């Protein structure tokens, strides 16, 4: 068996273009440690302080709205001396990224939340839609990714190329590390999300690295999913056009399930390694269909799954992660240790991944600081339930110091495995009063909610 250092070195070779820039704190805290989850705590603390402080100074100096926000809170870079001081960094509620105007002002809004120098962005339309503006930014090298709540209000986050590559590198390295020694480039993947090469919806876009980390990747939703289409399929728009769109989405989804089953059949009697990455809901629908047909597969150690984005399988039903793993073991024959969930969000670049031993969500603590806030939004102790917040040292194009709408419990270390860093309880929920969201939930709604029944 390959040792972990050589294993990660191989991954780095496959995804070389994503590696953080040299001579930066992020390079030291993200690229250099081979196993992100086994960095000795004292070393990780130093890296965390250096990386997050560096990021804070960058946003403080180059982002007008955040600078003003910090001044309102009487907080400046000089106030950061220890890791504990990081907790005082002014946090931005995630709602901030949902409060945007439309038309030309949307472009101005994006430009105003962006940290640093913008390239020239040309918008040709007189009354640009959100998609027109996103396309214009993308042509200029800024990737505006988005996600949405069930109300159809998107969260828009502008990422420069560097921030986007950071996010993808972190995702690949975090997942592959936890899957050790499963990963190899010469394998086959199925992305259960919209094609990232055609889309900006974060459900999928962040997984573009999958195409470089794995030799052959198929995509479940191989079409452009625009903000307008999301609005129509998620019920945010009425009218005949929306009904047609929803009907065709439903029809295509049925075919998608058959295509995935055919793909499984193709790899069944080979020695190929296969992985699924994306919305659990789609794989759940595949397994439901196989169960109805009385069929199972036995991929054993050759199969792996990385899920993300939420666990709703029907409009009113949420599936426990552990039940999902059992289903994958029973129907596809994959091993429990290779069925891992990943937790992340459009506003952040850190990805928390299940450990194979206990399925707790491990935090990449060398450049990313997780916080749990109590009812009064003050940092709570380890072991308390509260609202998830984070300080993200990998965000360069927007301040990644954010309070989310997710309810979590943070533990000082994993109760099951021997990795030293902090973990979140396996299941993340939405805090009271927040709308339902999650990229898998978006995909579920897009595909029509009856697929799995």
């Amino acid at each position: 068996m390959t040792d972990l250092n050589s294993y990660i070195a191989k991954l780095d070779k496959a995804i070389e273009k994503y590696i953080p820039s040299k001579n930066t704190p992020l390079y030291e805290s993200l690229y250099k440690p081979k196993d992100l989850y086994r960095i000795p705590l004292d070393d990780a603390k130093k890296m965390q302080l250096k990386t997050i402080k560096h990021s804070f100074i960058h946003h403080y100096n180059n982002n007008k709205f955040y600078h003003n926000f910090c001044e309102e809170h009487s907080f400046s870079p000089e106030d950061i001396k220890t890791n504990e001081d990081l907790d005082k960094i002014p946090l931005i509620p995630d709602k901030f990224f949902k409060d945007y105007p439309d038309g030309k002002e949307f472009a101005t809004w994006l430009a105003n939340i962006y940290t640093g120098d913008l390239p020239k962005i040309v918008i040709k339309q007189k009354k640009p839609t959100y998609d027109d503006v996103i396309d214009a930014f993308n042509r200029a090298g800024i990737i505006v990714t988005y996600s949405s709540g069930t109300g159809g209000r998107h969260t828009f986050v502008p990422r420069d190329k560097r921030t986007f590559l950071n996010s993808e590198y972190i995702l690949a390295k975090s997942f592959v590390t936890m899957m050790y020694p499963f990963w190899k480039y010469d394998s086959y993947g199925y992305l259960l999300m919209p094609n990232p090469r055609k889309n900006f919806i974060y459900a999928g876009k962040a997984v573009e690295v999958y195409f470089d980390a794995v030799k052959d990747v198929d995509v479940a939703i191989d079409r452009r999913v625009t903000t307008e289409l999301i609005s129509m399929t998620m019920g945010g728009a009425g009218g005949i056009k929306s009904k047609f769109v929803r009907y065709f989405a439903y029809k295509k989804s049925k075919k998608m399930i058959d295509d995935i089953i055919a793909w499984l059949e193709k790899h069944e009697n080979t020695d190929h390694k296969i992985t699924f990455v994306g919305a659990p809901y789609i794989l759940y629908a595949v397994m439901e269909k196989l169960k109805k047909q009385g069929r199972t597969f036995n991929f054993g150690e050759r199969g792996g799954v990385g899920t993300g984005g939420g666990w709703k399988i029907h409009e009113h039903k949420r599936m426990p992660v552990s039940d999902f793993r059992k289903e994958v073991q029973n129907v596809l024959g994959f091993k429990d240790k290779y069925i891992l969930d990943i937790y992340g969000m459009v506003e952040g670049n850190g990805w928390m991944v299940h450990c194979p031993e206990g399925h707790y969500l491990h935090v990449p603590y060398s450049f990313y600081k997780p916080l749990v806030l109590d009812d009064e939004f003050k940092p709570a102790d380890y072991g308390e339930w509260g609202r998830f917040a984070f300080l993200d040292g990998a965000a360069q194009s927007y301040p990644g110091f954010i309070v989310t709408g997710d309810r979590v419990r943070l533990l000082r270390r994993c109760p099951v495995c021997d990795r030293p860093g902090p973990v979140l309880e396996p299941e993340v929920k939405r805090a009271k009063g927040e709308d339902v969201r999650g990229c898998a939930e978006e995909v579920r709604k897009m595909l029509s909610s009856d697929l799995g029944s």
Partner: protein
Amino acid sequence: MLSVREIKEKQLIPQRPQLKMMIGGGLALSKTLLVSLGELKKLRKIPSNSERYNRPNRTYDLKKYESTMKSFMSHEKYLRPTLWCDPTEPEVIALAHQLGAYQKSDREFAEAAFEFVKEKMTLEILPFNPVSETIKRGTGTCIHLISVFIALCRAAGIKARYKMFAMNMIQAWYDTTVNVDPLIKKWYDSMGYFMIEGEGEAYIDGKWMVAHVGPRAERQAAGGIPVTKFGEDSLGNWFFAIPGSIMYMESIPIGLGGALRFLNKLAPGSMERVNISVQKQIERGKKIISQAGGIEPYNLTARKKKGPSTPELELRGKEQIVFE
């Protein structure tokens, strides 16, 4: 009779997003009614032996109008009379004076008008009427109440306008205004949003300032949200605008009044159920505020729970963004 020019100038014709939403809402309502004819028959009127809505007594006295009271007659945009909002009505002028018109600064007067409408008047779903009637009655839909606020500002020489949008809302609001009537619930759920909601805006010191006069402090307490002040938006607090739906207008557009009248004819029981629920919400809120020790202590706790403040973002044009 208004001329075509006036209709256009005063923005009486619904704007495109509003037209789209009204058509969408109309279609969704038709579908809801068609598939729920039996329910409609059962629910359209509340049986006499069931709980009925009793309009609350007006909680304020009104000063009598005197012809010597200074008033502001203008044909200027945002100051002149518009549909269902006439700042030259005697009751409006009298109330404006009662609240300190021409004695206070623009901001102080707008704040007084805001506090009065928001905290002294009560939400009641009913068809549109002139502002003077709303003032005499003390109740109205959020658009009635916004019209009172706008008329008072205009009567004091302060420009004021409507801000309309389609929205969805926090669960507590949904439970008291939507979930209380099966027909309204079906209608709302079929669209995923409510097609029209609004706020007022007053032009103070060179800036449009928002005024959401719809909910009294008690209703906000019952919903678990802070008691908002002049300048604080409902959007992002308990309402969330559907992207692209926010419109600014001088007047309530033609057609909205007719739609409300039609709904009132079609399902008066549904409106009554919402009104009953609003009264209950106020009672619940009263208890919550009293348990907290008053509005201020309640508000302090609610604001802490609401979370950290959101950064202010001033939209400044950037030379790198080129519109061709």
